[in-house]
């Protein structure tokens, strides 16, 4: 693969040279797979566990801990962090873009704390959109099917001045409900509209300026009432090139999200609505330079202010309801050329957050370019998952003199990881390339819950520890000029348990919900008459999901997605996409029971796209 990746060193380096477990999903991979949303596109990364929960929600993680409140993954879109400080997870239903204009998605499994900060414990997903220069002209798409009922999208790109490019886009879709395990509708249909713009200026050769923004509105139906989502962001970035080996960039963004979830009346509580409004202001600076011919140094400073307002629902509160939080960070990393083929990268991040104060995330990476086609790498890193509002500020009162049912712990501290990794990446022949990464993760202070009368029946604590280990393999085989195969396999062993002498109400089982193995095979064929045929077969192992109303397992499953595309002319493309074709419906997540498990139906959609 000839691509440059940026997620491993915060500067472009060839994929073959990146000393981490990184997988790249290109814009073309996304188009060919028939993915119609970002979570569907993420299925293409073999190092992720991607589970569709219902019509709008997904559970996505790397190397374990894929619970409903999974919190160990950092996700960025064009440098903007998209997780919620309520529980450090991602609302996948509101992360969207015109997929045509996504340049690539870099998925790093393993800790990225040194460069990317706290919460990049098990992985970093970096979604980058194409520059405006690469999205000139008019693009229109539309179509529909049984689950993706109807959708339309358009983008127009032009020039504002010489070397100043822009684009504007809009998209809208309706998705229908998924089903319950008894075949009835789950009544969770939804729709979303989103639009945005991007301006890139190359007016001066040393200065690149980018201004971009998006806004969205969504509406999700449920038997208990509609959930409304809305938000927007604006981001500016200035890159300045001092010389061939020295450059800097300064980025500022503002992000706003709003969500209102209806809560039905349940034991002890009236019905209500849980609202959250979040404003994020983020300033980020980085400078990269070479020192002599053996050191490439990158360092940076960052500041983030979040302003979160939670409107309480009966029996669920976050205290204080309104919270300003400050996050200061700095990092430095040096890539040292020990030898012609041997590189040692040392770095650390230092952060200060309002809950736990200073956190340090150092790492050391070594890379050996054994031949021009083979590379070995190893790494030891420390990463930290800092408390989120649910760990610290949650209150579930029972009223009167009674203790709270479940509270955040005011002494809740950060979860920590020391990760040991080894990897190998090679072009075995001109047609076959492969990569394999192995890891051993040692976790401390993972979230647990215990009694703390008289104030709380249950309180969050950090009484779990343990380790996980496994490996990830992926390979590409250009079988023929017109036929490519890609395979991926993951193994994950987990031993997370209660610290000796301590207790956990859930006995160590609340934080994990992961399949032990997964594999997938993808076939891509360029057929005659301008036809493309792509198919992906995936298999996911049994899921033991421990944090729900009933204990249980989701059975292992095979599933198949197929796309047939036809481009009769350069500008016009028709495609039919079938997803989850092997079963009428199947479960990927959740808890067993006739009415409580949501399952995913077989679905098909057709699409027309014009590129002018």
């Amino acid at each position, binding site marked *: 693969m000839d691509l440059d990746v940026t997620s491993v060193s915060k500067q472009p380096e060839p994929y073959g040279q990146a000393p981490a477990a990184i997988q790249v999903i290109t814009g073309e991979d996304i188009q060919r797979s028939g993915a119609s949303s970002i979570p569907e596109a993420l299925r293409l990364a073999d190092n992720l566990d991607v589970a569709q929960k219902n019509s709008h929600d997904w559970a996505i993680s790397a190397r374990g801990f894929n619970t409903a409140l999974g919190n160990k993954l950092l996700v960025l879109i064009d440098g903007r962090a998209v997780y919620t400080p309520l529980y450090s997870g991602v609302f996948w239903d509101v992360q969207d873009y015109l997929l045509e204009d996504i340049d690539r998605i870099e998925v790093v499994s393993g800790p990225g704390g040194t460069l990317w900060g706290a919460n990049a414990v098990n992985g970093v997903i970096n979604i980058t959109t194409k520059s405006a220069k690469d999205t000139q002209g008019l693009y229109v798409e539309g179509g529909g099917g049984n689950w993706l009922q109807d959708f339309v999208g358009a983008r127009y790109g032009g020039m504002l001045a010489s070397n100043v490019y822009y684009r504007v886009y809009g998209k809208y879709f309706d998705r229908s409900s998924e089903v319950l395990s008894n075949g009835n509708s789950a009544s969770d249909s939804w729709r979303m509209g989103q639009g945005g713009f991007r301006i890139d200026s190359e007016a001066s050769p040393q200065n690149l300026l980018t201004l971009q923004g998006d806004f969205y509105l969504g509406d999700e139906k449920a038997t208990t009432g509609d959930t409304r989502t809305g938000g927007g962001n604006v981001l500016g970035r200035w890159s300045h090139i001092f010389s061939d080996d020295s450059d800097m960039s300064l980025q500022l963004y503002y992000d706003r999200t709003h969500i209102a979830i209806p809560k039905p009346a349940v*034991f002890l509580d009236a019905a209500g609505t849980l609202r959250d409004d979040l404003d994020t202001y983020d300033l980020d600076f980085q400078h990269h330079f070479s020192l002599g011919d053996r050191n490439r140094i990158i360092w940076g400073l960052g500041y983030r202010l979040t302003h979160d307002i939670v409107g309480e629902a009966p029996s669920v509160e976050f205290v204080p309801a309104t919270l300003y939080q400050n996050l200061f960070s700095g990092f430095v990393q040096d890539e040292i050329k020990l030898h012609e083929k041997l590189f040692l990268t040392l770095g650390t991040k230092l952060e200060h957050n309002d809950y736990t104060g200073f956190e340090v995330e150092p790492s050391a990476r070594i890379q050996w370019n054994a031949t021009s086609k083979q590379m070995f790498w190893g790494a030891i890193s420390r990463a930290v998952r800092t408390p989120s509002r649910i760990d610290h500020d949650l209150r579930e009162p029972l009223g009167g003199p009674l203790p709270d049912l479940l509270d955040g712990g005011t002494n809740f501290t950060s979860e920590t990881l020391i990760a040991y990794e080894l990897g190998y990446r090679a072009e075995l022949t001109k047609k076959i390339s492969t990569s394999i990464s192995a890891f051993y993760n040692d976790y401390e202070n993972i979230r647990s819950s215990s009694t703390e009368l008289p104030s709380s029946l249950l309180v969050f604590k950090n009484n779990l520890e343990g380790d996980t280990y496994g490996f990830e393999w992926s390979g590409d085989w250009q079988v023929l000029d017109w036929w490519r195969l890609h395979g991926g396999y993951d193994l994950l062993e987990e031993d997370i348990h209660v610290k000796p002498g301590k207790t956990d*109400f859930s006995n160590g089982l609340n934080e994990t919900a992961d399949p032990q193995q997964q594999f997938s095979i993808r076939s891509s064929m360029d057929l005659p008459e301008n036809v493309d045929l792509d198919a992906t077969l995936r298999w996911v192992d049994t899921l033991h999901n421990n944090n729900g109303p009933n204990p249980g397992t989701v059975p292992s499953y095979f599933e198949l997605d197929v796309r047939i595309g036809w481009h009769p002319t350069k500008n016009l493309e028709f495609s039919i996409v079938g997803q989850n074709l092997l079963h009428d419906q199947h479960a990927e997540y959740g808890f067993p029971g006739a009415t409580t498990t949501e399952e995913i139906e077989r679905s098909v959609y057709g699409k027309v796209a014009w590129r002018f």
Partner: protein
Amino acid sequence: MKKIIWLAAIALLLSGAPELPAQTGISREYQVKAVFLFNFAQFIAWPTNAFADPQTPMTIGVLGDDPFDSFLDETVRGEKVGEHPLVIQHYRRIEDVQGCQILFISRSEDGQTGRILAGLKDKNILTVGDSDGFIKDGGIVRFVMEENKIHFRINLEAAKSANLAISSKLLRLAEIVEPGSD
């Protein structure tokens, strides 16, 4: 397998999943009561002769229909109170009850509660129930729903007769009531 459903309830809430209509399994009311039982086991002291030896299991018994579904079993599995592993037993008849430290008497036994509690008098068993008149019938702890709020009442005299020492941390949260009350 264990689970912390409040966490899941929050998760369901935050991830916007629909609240599905009354499902098989335990209701939230009994999830809350189960967490209370878990706390009772930790904040009450039984006399040493209530256990054969320090490693004897501490048993929470459920007499009658089980309103907890399998939740209590899941909740306590693997837990310990001091050195005693915590176990759950299900009983159909009062005659079968032996060697348990906490006994939850289900509403299915309404009408016989008085007779049942009379037979348990002066044994070192914490009797817990939510039926009307549970305290009057001789029970020690009763869950009460009042104005959409849950309370629990403790008959301290009955606790003393059963030789149980209740931690002040638990007492201050309860309504202390006289033997004759509801």
